């Protein structure tokens, strides 16, 4: 299919005075015959919440992997806080203040929950006692304090999602990339994560979130970027994107998501 030309030639919706934090320009990545990400442009401003949505296989996770240094792009440029991220290893990207979570969660199952978060906090706090204190503080904030000394392998799905979030937060990022931290959760659990994300954002941490749960996207995002077949097909405020015919068309047939927006 040939995707329709990008519609978003409208001016950026971010407010004046918000500094640009993440700037993605012309990002492309091909896997064999699959053009997973194609000439992708978007930005995230300091303190902003942006959602990256699109049908299954649209290239969202690939975009995260490209931005966070896990994959090298075929073309394009990613700038974070004024620094070109080209050639940086994932840990270097993280050290600059850009933290990601994994769609397929990757806890260290044999380590305790608090040790899992300490792997994150030790980066900025070499002192083990201090790193542990901060890790416990993050766990308390995310409601995992009671599980801190259990092995991470024994957590429930909802708890593992929150651990994934806690670890990313433990690296003290300026921008958090969240890859489906709500999928598969009950409504109550989803609501809890939404509140957590909001609280994190209120502390000044910008959020870029991939999410299929449209209710959460609509309530959290200040701006939405829509991907289809690796290309950006729409971008804008939640209300306008939800009513965009191109977005509706892209989602037709994708039942899980098609029922959510409207």
């Amino acid at each position, binding site marked *: 299919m040939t995707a329709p030309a990008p519609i978003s030639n409208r001016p950026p919706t971010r407010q004046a005075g918000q500094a640009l934090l993440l700037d993605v320009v012309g990002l492309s990545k091909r896997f064999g015959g699959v053009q997973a990400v194609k000439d992708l442009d978007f930005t995230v401003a300091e303190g902003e919440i942006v959602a990256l949505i699109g049908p299954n296989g649209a290239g969202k996770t690939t975009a995260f992997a490209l931005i966070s240094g*896990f994959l090298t792009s075929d073309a394009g440029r990613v700038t974070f806080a004024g620094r070109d991220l080209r050639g940086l290893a994932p840990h270097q990207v993280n050290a600059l203040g850009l*933290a990601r979570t994994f769609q397929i969660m*990757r806890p260290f199952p044999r380590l305790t929950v608090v040790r899992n978060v300490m792997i994150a906090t030790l980066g900025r706090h070499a002192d083990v006692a201090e790193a542990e204190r901060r890790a416990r503080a993050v766990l308390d904030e995310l409601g995992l304090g009671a599980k801190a000394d259990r092995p991470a392998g024994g957590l429930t799905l909802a708890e593992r999602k929150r651990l994934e979030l806690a670890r990313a937060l433990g690296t003290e990022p300026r921008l958090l990339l969240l890859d489906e931290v709500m999928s598969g959760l009950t409504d109550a659990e989803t609501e809890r994560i939404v509140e957590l994300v909001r609280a994190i954002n209120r502390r000044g941490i910008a959020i870029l979130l991939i999410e299929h749960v449209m209710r959460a996207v609509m309530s959290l995002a200040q701006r939405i970027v829509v991907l289809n077949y690796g290309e950006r097909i729409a971008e804008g405020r939640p209300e306008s994107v939800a009513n965009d015919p191109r977005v509706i068309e892209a989602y037709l047939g994708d039942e899980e998501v098609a029922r959510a927006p409207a």
Partner: protein
Amino acid sequence: MKWALGLTALAVLLGLPTVLSGYAVTIFVLIFFYAFLAQAWNIVGGYAGQLSAGHAAFVGVGGYTAALLLDRGITPWLGMLVGAALAAVLGSIIGYLGFRFGLRGFYLVLLTVAFAEVCRILASNIDAVGGAVGLYITFTGNPRQFQFQDQRAYYYLALALMLLGTGVVALIERRRFGIYLTAIREDEGACEALGVPTFKYKMLAMVVSAFLTGLGGTFYAFYLFSLQPNTVFGIPLSVEIIIRAVIGGAGTLLGPILGSFILTPLGVPISPPHHQARLAMTAPEKRTAPAPISNRPPTRPAA
């Protein structure tokens, strides 16, 4: 409680030689020595989960260095450190190649074994280091030359090595370095995402491990009087090191010690000829003075 137990065990081990036979002392020396080697391997193989199967190379480089330096009049006490440093250099080369290219599991095993084999073949073919026959160390009993008339000296030396290795690991375990290693073992990608420079820490683990193993090489050479390429660089020695850590508990502080206490005595009847020489010297029926074994290969007892 933990401390009381540890101190009691230490007191027992310190006092043991006064009641043990010479033969039993030899077995304990081997237990401590292999526990030390396994403990050194434990850093990179156990904690960091990077399966090196070529640690014999570090024993060999350490031992050969100290033996060759002694020929030039340099005491093995110093040669030991030089040998360990060279082993660490070799470790950094192996580590760089393995970790830069992200080798893991089976592929890392192949690379590390290949390096040890290259060392073995080089040593076998360079006459200046004894060629295939290897190096034999003349027994002088001179402490300056890392040799002792009294068996118990080796006992305490081996015990000191084991305690040194365990002390180093205990220190690593409670620091950021050790905590990172346990996570690297589980998921390197997740570590990277959390800001852990995994390459750097894997390299560090390999270098520290190789250095300690290289120290052990000197003890090996001067306790067993001989360095033969096939044994000191051989795959069996690497396996001996690994299985002690694995049986006792890889990635745990006491695993290598436990593993050595279980496996070393079991292995004594089938241990290689160079061990048999030592064992024969102290065997109960041969309480005669230790015959110098210099310049001839130890003879394998008819089995």
